[in-house]
């Protein structure tokens, strides 16, 4: 059973455009929602994270939007660049317990 559902599976965006990746969850005990960026042959690296007591968090070109009532959260990449081309994973954690990852979104930014 997939604890965190992620979409789309792949995404192609023009340089300068906005990339949007969505995730949904069911477990209301989750208290931490990170996004990871992974390049081929590398381990995932933390990009940005949010806790359920806020609805939005922005760091540079990256923004997480969080909808607690809908149990959904999304990653927005503004002014997408070719260097952003990577696989992105959302995740969720219940305090003191394991992380659950989404299935990943392969982002390609076309110059």
């Amino acid at each position, binding site marked *: 059973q997939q604890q965190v559902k*992620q979409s789309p599976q792949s995404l192609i965006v023009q340089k300068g455009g906005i990339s949007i990746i969505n995730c949904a969850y069911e477990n209301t005990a989750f208290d*931490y929602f*990170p996004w*990871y960026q992974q390049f081929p*042959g*590398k*381990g*995932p*690296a*933390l990009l940005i*994270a949010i806790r359920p007591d806020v609805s939005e968090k922005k760091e540079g070109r990256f923004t997480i939007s969080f909808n607690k009532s809908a149990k959904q959260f999304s990653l927005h990449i503004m002014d997408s660049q070719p260097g952003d081309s990577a696989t992105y*994973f959302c*995740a969720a954690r219940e*305090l*003191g*317990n*394991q*992380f*659950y*990852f*989404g*299935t*990943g979104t392969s982002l390609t930014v076309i110059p």
Partner: protein
Amino acid sequence: GAGVSQTPSNKVTEKGKYVELRCDPISGHTALYWYRQSLGQGPEFLIYFQGTGAADDSGLPNDRFFAVRPEGSVSTLKIQRTERGDSAVYLCASSSGPTREQFFGPGTRLTVL
């Protein structure tokens, strides 16, 4: 400073063999995690250590999988009687505590022929 390192980077073995995968966490990190990532999938939790003890091993798929962290630093993931379905990238991550950011290593790509 040095990040999480994993050795070997690639391991090819035959079905039925025993393998050991090593993880060197960031110095001082008390929490250590093992994940398995199959092609096109997200990391799947295997086991979590806090110090020397396994705080949560609920993700280990069966008793062929075992992990140790005897001195609270380096960890070894051991797989007995390997099967072709064990082929995946095995990722290790460490953090300064269970609520802190996890830093991932580059992974070990295991191929079972």
